[in-house]
């Protein structure tokens, strides 16, 4: 069986497992944690699509998350719109943000692009606090409605969108787009010499990344039922990057595993919540020195070789 077939089969197995676990365990607490984990998985996968493939690490992914979440908040709380509108609007708003920040920053080299994006998110965070009459300032917006009264049903909705996200991103990554994005990582000048419109692909991949991040933001907002400026915070972007490092950059599915692992780990360490950042940081350092390819993706690749 070809590699791709095995990949999809493995994904199916994981999907089924993710669907069954909360239903079997029947605990509202577990379902809640898993919902959050799935949102992080969407954020990590969407980050990986752009940054993992092109190698241009984006330190301001929270910009798109916050944009999506606040859009959901505005529509639901300020305008009384049904939560379902958020699913359409949030990605669009996030994409708009990506256009605004992307055009001027994508021509910058690696670390500068990273930090420019970080600045963008930080500015957004400050603006959100300053214009508190509209955004609720530090307290944010409260009183969002969930999609469903049943937490389990909402979990399945989130799982559906995660599956859709990963499927779409993988399909694109395996298409000529993916090859081109990886070539951009290799050498931009050579891409131009090969007749490729590099700017277009960079912006487009950022837009796609933003769309799914915004979607995750909306789902998160309608789960937490509140949005705050923390959703634009630098630390959120960093946590997501760490999840991607754990998962294995460039694989799209690896970061999903990384996100779920780290969220579960965080919960398990809830008793030691002061040490949480310690743990994240230690993990990051270990990965950088010993497992630069990550944990999840290499593990899967090994399993896959055995299975074939």
């Amino acid at each position: 069986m070809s590699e791709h077939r095995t990949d999809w089969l493995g994904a199916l197995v994981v999907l089924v497992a993710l669907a069954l676990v909360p239903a079997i365990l029947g605990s509202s607490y577990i379902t809640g944690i898993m919902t959050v984990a799935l949102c992080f998985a969407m954020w990590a996968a969407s980050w990986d699509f752009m940054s993992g493939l092109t190698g241009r690490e984006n330190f301001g992914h929270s910009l798109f998350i916050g944009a999506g979440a606040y859009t959901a908040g505005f529509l639901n709380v300020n305008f009384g719109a049904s939560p379902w509108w958020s699913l359409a609007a949030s990605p669009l708003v996030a994409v708009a943000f990506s256009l605004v920040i992307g055009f001027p920053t994508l021509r910058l080299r690696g670390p500068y692009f990273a930090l420019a994006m970080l600045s963008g998110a930080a500015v957004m965070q400050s603006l959100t606090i300053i214009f508190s009459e509209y955004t609720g300032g530090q307290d944010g917006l409260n009183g969002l409605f969930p999609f469903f009264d049943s937490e389990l049903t909402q979990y399945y909705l989130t799982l559906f969108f995660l599956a859709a996200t990963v499927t779409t991103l993988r399909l694109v990554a395996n298409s000529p787009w993916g090859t081109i994005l990886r070539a951009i990582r290799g050498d931009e000048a050579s891409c131009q010499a090969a007749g490729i419109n590099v700017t277009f692909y960079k912006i487009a991949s950022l837009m796609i990344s933003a769309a799914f991040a915004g979607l995750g933001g909306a789902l998160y907002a309608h789960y937490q039922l509140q949005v705050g400026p923390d959703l634009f915070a630098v630390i959120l972007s960093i946590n997501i990057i760490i999840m991607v490092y754990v998962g294995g950059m460039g694989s799209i599915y690896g970061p999903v595993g990384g996100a779920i692992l780290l969220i579960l780990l965080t919960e398990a360490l809830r008793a030691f919540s002061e040490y949480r950042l310690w743990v994240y940081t230690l993990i990051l350092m270990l990965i950088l020195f010993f497992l630069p390819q990550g944990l999840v993706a290499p593990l899967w690749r090994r399993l896959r070789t055995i299975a074939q």
Partner: protein
Amino acid sequence: MKALLAVDGLNKRFGGLQAVKDVSFALEPGSITGVLGPNGAGKTTLFNLLTGFMTADTGKVEFDDEPLLGLAPYRIVNRGLARTFQLTRPFVGMSVLENVEVACFAPRVRHEGHARARAHAMLEHVGLAPKAASLVDVLPYGDLRRLEIARALATRPKLLLLDEPFAGLGSSEIQPLADLIRELHRKEGLTILIIEHKLRELMQLAHEVIAMDFGEVVATGVPAEIVRHPRVVEAYIGKAEIGESGGALGAA
């Protein structure tokens, strides 16, 4: 016969240095033309100007009757003007085949489909087919050169610009590459412009030679004449007295 490429009064200045000065020439379709000159003569700058990687201060360039200056590099490629780089720049982390595949996705040739098969065909043209699955990271220099050519060919150019294709190659690799270039010219009907400061190889391949020094065109003509042209001799031998090879003037 109408010129495929017509260059008129091209100028480029970097701060205090006039890298390209009032360069004009024309290329007939189907010709192989060489650009000769010592390091620092402005050859690579000329290529960069023609391919859009640098912007000219003044001048006009017409390719196939259409103006070329001011276009982004990728657009120029899609008009049918491809180039290789002096310092090869492969897509690291990807296979040899994928490196050529990328060029198959260029808008100019995308509609042909079957990118993988076409990429493979290009590799066969240049003799790299056996290494299709290898990662470029481990490829020897000579192979990287061929890869660059394969990638350029994949965009089905009318004009191919080769920037010092023989640089850094051992004597055993030079002849096969020269043969390849000649064969490509014959089979594909390509017009070729080669920068090279290795006289012998250039003389063998080129029908006509443009000699440059200090950013200017100092002579044009058939190889036999150029080699005896006083300005050319001065540029080469003169520099040898000061101790050339490597550029008292820096990079081309």
